[in-house]
């Protein structure tokens, strides 16, 4: 196995962290094995462009699959809403203070 393939497999294990914990426990090792097979196959047939294609697909799946799965979890939704509302409040206060300073 070449270093490119080894690095890819290692990085994919980190990408797997974006998937929900239950799903990862059930299918994580199998997904890593399948990704490794996919990378090896593409490396042999198409070289670097093939590996890039596999990575593009894997990263697209983070947005299209992992994020919606995470959003099904109510804890994640609550945390995200809390962060967003805090950010909105901070921005509002910051905007108001900027106006006050400019007024003076």
């Amino acid at each position, binding site marked *: 196995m070449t270093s490119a393939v080894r690095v890819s497999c290692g990085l994919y294990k980190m990408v797997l962290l974006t998937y929900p914990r239950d799903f990862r426990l*059930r299918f994580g090792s*199998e*997904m890593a*094995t399948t*990704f490794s097979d*996919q990378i090896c196959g593409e490396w042999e047939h198409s070289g670097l462009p093939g590996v890039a294609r596999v990575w593009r697909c*894997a990263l697209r*799946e983070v947005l299209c699959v992992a994020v919606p799965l995470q959003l099904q979890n109510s804890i994640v939704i609550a945390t995200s809403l809390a962060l967003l509302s805090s950010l909105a409040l901070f921005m509002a206060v910051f905007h108001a203070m900027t106006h006050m300073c400019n007024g003076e």
Partner: protein
Amino acid sequence: MIGCSGNESQLFVLSPQRDVDMVKRLSFASQMLKDPDSTRWGWSQYSHGKNFLTIYLILIYQYQIYVMPSANRIPDDLQHLLPLTPAVFFILFALADGDKHGYAIMQSVSRISDNQFRMGPGTLYTTIQRLLDLDLIAETESAGGQSDHESRRRYYKLTRTGKTILTADISRMESVVRLAREKKLVPKTSE
């Protein structure tokens, strides 16, 4: 082809030929009941024609209820799956010719879709999870090879319900293609 039986609205999966035969027999029988003289076989000459016909209809009904294998019925809770999504269809289709592990399913899907439909491990395993939960596929007992890499593989097989729903979707597509041919939307040479 999916047919509807009586007031119970039970759905059956029939082979296309058997379905056509059944529809022909039922339409002939209903026409007989309405107007026995109109049929060219001259059933009206029989004095007990209607009684005979009633028994015939009851036998057809009994056949649909008891003789037809219950395995061919699509459970009500799976009706919403039709038409199947591309990922579900291709995974079920890939498993139709034998047990496969994840990577083999991916390769098979690539091949049968002529590289038009590609999926990564994320799409593959979320769909597999859904299909396992719906009992459309099952994990097989057979273990992988001796190596660590092989032993981490899990093999999946199509269940009877999975096969039924796949057949129903293929029949639906056949009907669509047949209609498209009638409307001359697809060339007849593609048969």
